[in-house]
């Protein structure tokens, strides 16, 4: 990973892929982790498209299972995101973090 580097990924491109929203979310999770090995920051551009899928966003929230909370917050950024979608991701992240704490 090169410090100070950033890549912006267009979210909409995944939404038209075949598969359930969970499966699409899981691919996005893999892509984020992969890009983190090259770039310090991964930015997802939602282009103001509402996603409104708990299953898909839960796959992104799973990053908190694998990486420390502050690292995920610092290295993953969202732009042009529907505020309700952002709240949904945060809600799911909180649920994941609480579960991680209980099982720790």
């Amino acid at each position, binding site marked *: 990973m090169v410090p100070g580097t950033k890549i912006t990924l267009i979210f909409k491109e995944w939404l038209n892929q075949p598969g359930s929203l969970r499966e699409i979310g899981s691919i996005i999770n893999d892509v984020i982790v992969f890009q983190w090995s090259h770039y310090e920051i991964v930015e997802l551009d939602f282009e103001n498209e509402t996603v409104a*899928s708990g299953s898909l966003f839960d796959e992104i929230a799973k990053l908190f299972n694998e990486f420390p909370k502050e690292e995920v917050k610092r290295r993953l950024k969202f732009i042009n995101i529907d*505020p309700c979608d952002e709240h949904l991701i945060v809600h799911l992240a909180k649920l994941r973090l609480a579960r991680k704490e209980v099982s720790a």
Partner: protein
Amino acid sequence: MNPEVSHKLPKWFLSFPVTRLAEPSYPLAGQVTQILTEKLRGVENFHKAVHFAIREVIENSFEHGQTDHCYMCAYSVPSKQIVRLCILDTGIGIPESMITSQRYPDLRNDIDAVDKAAEYGVSSKSDERGIGLYLLRDVAEKNEASLTILSGKAKMDISKDIKKTLLDIAFPGTMVNLSIKTRRDFYYLSTSDWEEL
């Protein structure tokens, strides 16, 4: 919709007629939400909660129902600031899906199965899933809403309280009925943004 029927609908009634869906069709949830919430007060998170509900329930029909189609209809009543929607499939049903997965051996009947399915982290597929019905139930419980899940012999009515009924005759599939009212302090999950997490 049959035009003869549609012109008889009262003007205050915005509807999405019974439609057979042959795939989850992601843009559809957004389009239906727009039709339904057009004339309702502009509470943004209410619109998003309706969108969310449609997405999760349709997705479940295709993913778990083992069927290639489901049905949906919906309408809104602007004078009451209410949206009502119904999504149903004639698939295997929640009890069978939960019981045959053998992940929850303590389930005694169809009600146990549906009740369990609506808990956080409960899924017939894996330990790392199970948020769709849980979030839907959470939104229904914390708003002026009523959510009915009918599947097999189980009927669960969720609003501020929960009523569980074991039916004599099984419904051959899953039906989710949601009636939800908008209001200024509408609850839709978290209100914090990413930086505040």
